[in-house]
């Protein structure tokens, strides 16, 4: 779509009668709605958010909303997954750009921290307040943490003693990373997230490498 848009401005289909295929219009509306949903819920909290808040922010009609989603929860879950998709994609690009596993891990973690620090409100919703949105959302959050485990599992092949490490190590290491980040967010220190890198790298490496080697790797990064 070769249409010039101003920096930071999302392209919208032209108003009124136009010849765009309906599925294109609908996809763009859906994306707008998903982004608006994360924004509104981050600001107001899930419980206080209404469908009207969402349609207003997204600039879509109520009819369109209900064509896309059954209710607020379905919309929030889709919005949440969409946001997680974006994060995991960014992490993956940074991770794949490096060779050695500890370097890959460092690059992935740095990208995650930068992305979260850039949008503290969204970060808090994604990692902390999501639990207030009910059991289905809690399971989505857990699934999101689970999506990070392949990045950790590679430690098993990299580490000399990696084969003997419990199978759940990757889930636990991912949990440690997310937990340490959440602690910062709860304390309102989102802007300091990037300084967490060495702690997170240690938490990532230690189940596979042990404390000595993990500390050495961390030391080399910070030096």
């Amino acid at each position: 779509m070769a249409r010039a848009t101003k920096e930071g401005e999302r392209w919208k289909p032209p108003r009124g009668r136009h010849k765009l295929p309906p599925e294109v219009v609908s996809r763009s509306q859906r994306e707008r709605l998903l982004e608006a949903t994360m924004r509104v819920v981050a600001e107001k909290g899930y419980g206080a958010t209404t469908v009207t808040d969402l349609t207003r922010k997204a600039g879509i009609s109520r009819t369109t909303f209900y064509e896309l989603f059954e209710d607020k929860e379905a919309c929030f879950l889709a919005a949440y997954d969409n946001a997680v998709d974006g994060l995991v994609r960014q992490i993956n690009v940074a991770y794949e750009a490096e060779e050695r596993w500890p370097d890959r891990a460092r690059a992935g973690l740095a990208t995650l921290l930068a992305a979260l620090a850039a949008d503290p409100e969204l970060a808090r919703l994604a990692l902390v307040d999501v639990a207030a949105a009910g059991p289905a959302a809690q399971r989505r959050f857990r699934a999101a943490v689970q999506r990070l485990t392949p990045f950790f599992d590679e430690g098993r092949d990299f580490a000399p003693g990696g084969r003997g490490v419990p199978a759940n190590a990757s889930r636990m290491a991912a949990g440690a990373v997310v937990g340490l980040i959440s602690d910062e967010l709860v304390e309102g220190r989102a802007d300091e997230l990037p300084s967490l890198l060495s702690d997170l790298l240690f938490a990532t490496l230690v189940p596979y490498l042990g404390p000595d080697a993990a500390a050495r790797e961390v030391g080399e990064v910070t030096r």
Partner: protein
Amino acid sequence: MPPTASQNGAKSKAHKDDLDGLIEKEQLPSGREDLVEPLVAHSQRERILNAMAEACAKKGFGATTIADICEVAGVSRATFYELFRDKEDCLQASMELSLADAMGRIVEVYSPDKPWATMVRDATATFLDLLASRPDFARMALIEAPAAGGRSVEMYASGKRVLQALLDRGRSDPIEEQGIPSSAGRGALAAAESLIVGQILAGNTERLPELLPDIVYIVTIPYLGQDEALRQSREAEKSLHRNG
């Protein structure tokens, strides 16, 4: 975690005997309402706290209404408001009891004479057993409370700080501690918690005790090194088979 459970050894035994005595005297002569009333209130309070945990497990704390709680507890709205200010107050009361119970049990197995790793293993096993025996409370304390806001969040955080202090004692007798970040204990605890919460959300709360070897591994490795952590994990595995 369960509000019904005992705090610790001898004292609670005596307390329990008191209670049994009172219950035996159930056919109290009329005119003794002063004795009956607190007892009824106590059991209603307990029923409400149980009901809240049950309702939250289904709908989440946010969506749970006082009507839901009253329905499960089989009490009137008026009774609820006699005992609690609001839903948050009820969650807070439940957290208070749950925390007191969890801490009481951990204190029972805690002994400065035990080797640190043994103490960590025993405390973890106790904690997992407790969570497994009260799934709804486990869910409430570890999943709903941290997101509920207010005092409940503080209580959740203070419970974690106590466990972390226990864990950080590993730093006084570590094999190596060079370059270990001060957040290592917090990270290890978050790692364990994440595994536990995952099991709870997957509906496997009753199988939490099986996580003992993995959790022992993750919480000891920053302090003891990989070989010793693996050894401790295998010990934990054996203790599971001995007890299960």
